[in-house]
């Protein structure tokens, strides 16, 4: 009965080995890839292998890793840096944490390989301070690897040396953007700057720097060991290998999955994810977090890869997948994401600083029933212009949740502005709780739970809700045993 929809490359060891034991990692072939690079390959060979494998950045944008390494290798410098971006910022994604907590040496090994390939010998892991366990296990792993001569000076007896330090994030989503991340690593406000120059040319301390995400790195030792052909044989035409997703929200099997690129959304949701709980209807899945968009039943058969998601106005992002059911209001979801980006925008460029606030305000207006059709137009045009003018990736993708939900759920938006109704029954200001006379038996339970005492009626008589005083908390609906209260 075992269905093998998943293929675990990046997460091949998590859950299997003891993350606090370097022997445990070595026993599954750990550091062999690094050893192979140092003993049998020239740096250029490593880069070629990476290029041929087709591995693309798993942090979101999908830039080919080998090409990035090639750029950094090209610039001459006494110092070059390999940075591991472990500032997992997407709310609803935790694959990086899982890998770091479950298989830290895998990431260290990959960073050293990157250092060897580009001609650098310093590595920095920029990790969220909110991940204490991952930090502790990384520190331990670095020490163990140094003690065994797998990191530090003259690795495995060669003249290649590579050291890794940790730097902590401090709660800023924008630091996932590589230029902001570099600013933050240097101890500054995490404000992005205009590229070019790209970090590969002038990054950390103005030195050539490659920034790779945890999941990207976690693939690398396997690629070195099993070859470019093996890796590029997995996935789709443009997207090779696998992708780790965190599926959560309204889904039965909440958890971490790793599937080959090109797996359909349907497989992910129904076969791997076990479908929607409580017999509810699948409505949408948000991929790419606050930078992404909503996929719907229309997209269920689409193979998941970088290009297909972008074509559907979403994006791969780091791999968060939030599943929503019929009870979720897409306007409210868009508002939730804008609330997030509005807080997280660094505030440097005008479109993002003020634009996120204005989009949020318009969405808020819509959810409280004060929106107009003109507002929908404003939303669209403002969103397009922000995408066009914002400084960094955060601002350029910030309107995506709005644009994608408007594309697919325009009806829902229109219901809010024209009918002043929230079809999913989420937006409190647009709801009305009413008593169905035929069903009410006058048990008084609803009146007793109402926190504002707006339900009146004598025992055994039909009760009435005072709409003016009702705060739409839904307590009466939950309590009524006779389905006599409806929300609409």
């Amino acid at each position, binding site marked *: 009965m075992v269905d093998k929809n998943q293929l675990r490359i990046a997460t091949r060891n998590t859950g299997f080995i003891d*993350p606090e034991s370097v022997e445990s990692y070595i026993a599954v072939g750990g*550091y*062999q890839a690094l050893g192979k690079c140092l*003993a049998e390959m020239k740096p250029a060979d490593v880069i070629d292998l990476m290029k041929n494998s087709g591995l693309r950045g798993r942090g979101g944008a999908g830039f080919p890793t080998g090409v990035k390494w090639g750029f950094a290798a090209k610039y001459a410098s006494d110092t070059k840096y390999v940075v591991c971006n472990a500032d997992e910022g997407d709310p609803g994604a935790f694959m990086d944490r899982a890998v770091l907590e479950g298989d830290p040496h895998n990431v260290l090994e990959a960073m050293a390989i990157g250092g060897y390939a580009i001609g650098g010998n310093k590595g920095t892991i920029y990790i969220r301070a909110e991940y204490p*366990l991952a930090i502790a296990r990384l520190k331990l792993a670095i020490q163990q690897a140094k003690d065994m001569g*797998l990191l530090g000076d003259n690795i495995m007896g060669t003249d290649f040396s590579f050291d890794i330090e940790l730097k902590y994030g401090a709660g800023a989503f924008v630091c996932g953007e590589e230029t902001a991340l570099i600013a933050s690593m240097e101890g500054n406000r995490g404000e992005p700057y205009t590229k070019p120059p790209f970090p590969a040319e002038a990054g950390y301390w103005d030195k050539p720097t490659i920034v790779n995400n945890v999941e990207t790195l976690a693939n690398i030792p396997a690629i070195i060991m099993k070859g470019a052909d093996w890796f590029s044989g997995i996935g789709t035409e443009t997207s090779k290998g696998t992708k780790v997703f965190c599926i959560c929200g309204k889904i039965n099997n909440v958890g971490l999955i790793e599937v080959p690129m090109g797996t359909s959304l349907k497989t992910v949701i129904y076969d791997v994810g076990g479908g929607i709980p409580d017999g509810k209807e699948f409505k949408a899945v948000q991929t790419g977090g606050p930078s992404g968009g909503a996929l719907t039943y229309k997209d269920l058969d689409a193979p998941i890869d970088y290009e297909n998601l972008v074509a559907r106005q979403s994006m791969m992002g780091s791999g968060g997948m939030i599943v929503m059911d019929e009870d979720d209001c897409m306007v409210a979801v868009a508002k939730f994401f804008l609330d997030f980006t509005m807080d997280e925008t660094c505030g440097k460029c005008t479109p993002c600083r003020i634009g996120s606030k204005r989009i949020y305000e318009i969405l808020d207006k819509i959810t409280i029933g004060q929106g107009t059709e003109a507002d929908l137009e404003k939303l669209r045009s403002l969103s397009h212009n922000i995408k066009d003018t914002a400084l960094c990736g955060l601002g350029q993708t910030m309107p995506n949740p709005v644009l994608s939900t408007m594309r697919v759920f325009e009806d829902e938006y229109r219901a809010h502005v024209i009918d002043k109704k929230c079809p999913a029954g989420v937006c409190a200001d647009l709801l009305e709780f009413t008593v169905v006379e035929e069903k009410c038996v006058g048990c008084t339970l609803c009146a007793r739970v109402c926190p504002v005492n707006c339900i009146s009626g004598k025992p055994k008589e039909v009760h009435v809700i005072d709409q003016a005083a009702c705060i739409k908390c839904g307590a009466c609906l939950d309590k009524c045993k006779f389905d006599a209260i409806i929300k609409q």
Partner: protein
Amino acid sequence: MAKIKSLAELQKKRDELQAVAAKTKNEKVIVNVSLATCGIASGGKEVMEAMKQEAAALGINNVEFTMSGCMTYCFAEPTVEITLPGKEPVVFGYIKGDKAKELVSKYIKSGELVDGVIPASYERIVF
């Protein structure tokens, strides 16, 4: 710890470790508890402790406890993987309350399956 001086030394080390692991696998029950952040938050450490106590109480002493990171079945935390000597590993989820003791007294002691088994739905790369 002795430093590894070459790729050959590393390969030798790996082979040694694998040999030890294979031996253990044939002789002992291996209990692997998922102890990533969510596993710990769901009570993974308590599960491990309860199982140790129960094993001691029942006089079962060929059990080796290990820990690992996330087993990916977040919906079923805490999760425990048990490998009986010579058998394939089995993952049990939803280990709440007395379930931990039950795993010892039933599955480890007599190979009797309890509910909460999570089938592996993946293929895993090894090299």
